[in-house]
């Protein structure tokens, strides 16, 4: 259920995690899991394609380095990614507030 609900928001959440600074893939996924108190525990392998898609869109930049003898790819937010995150955050806030208003409204039934 969570995985389905996440589909439209994963990109924004990934950008948000990277706002704090450059991270490698596994650290991004762990940050997502910890930040959601374990609710967003997606199959790790399906998050990497989203990172690649964001890179192709110019919103994040990936670079390879060698850490403790292992090749590691680190992602960082680009200026375009930062702008997109600001816009998406505003849009989400507006949307969540509108949905919340409707859901919490006290409806009276009329016949």
């Amino acid at each position, binding site marked *: 259920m969570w995985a389905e609900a996440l589909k439209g928001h994963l990109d924004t959440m990934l950008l948000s995690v990277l706002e704090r600074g450059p991270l*490698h*893939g596994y650290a991004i996924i762990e940050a997502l899991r910890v930040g959601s108190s374990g609710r967003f525990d997606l199959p790790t*392998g399906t998050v990497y*394609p989203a990172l690649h*898609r964001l890179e*192709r869109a110019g919103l994040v930049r990936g670079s390879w380095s060698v850490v403790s003898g292992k090749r590691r790819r680190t992602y960082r937010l680009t200026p375009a990614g930062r702008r997109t995150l600001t816009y998406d955050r505003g849009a989400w806030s507006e949307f969540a507030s509108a949905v919340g208003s409707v859901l919490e409204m006290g409806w009276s039934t009329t016949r």
Partner: protein
Amino acid sequence: MVDHPLIDGYLSDLAAAMPGPARWRQSVLDEARDSLLEAMETHLRIAADPSEAARQVIGKYGPVPVVVAAFVPEAAAQRAKYAGLFMFLAMPALAELWYVAVHLHPAIDWHGGNAAVRVAGVLLGISVAIALFGSLGSIVCATRSRRCS
């Protein structure tokens, strides 16, 4: 470095099933390997049995068909980028071949009254233009997905 035959087996299955250009595929597999080994190190701090840790890590990474399916659009974009680049680079070679063909057969009057030759020239021009715009378009789509979605 923490390694395990189960992780190696999983990566081999992933490599066999992953579509896309070889260089891009290798980079996907390197990243998968790094992620699995990093997760393995974390799991070994909790679970003492390396085989159990490897099974958990692989389970969390996801079944091979699910992971491959998630990568399919990216693999297609990479193929489009390579195809576009190939078409773009092939164009000067195509023009050169036509130039050679024309000079090898000077008897053909390209500007004269032969209607078939004139039509062929126009068709050639149109096909080169389509190839040029097509290749540039696919390169742009493959590198900046949001512009084409």
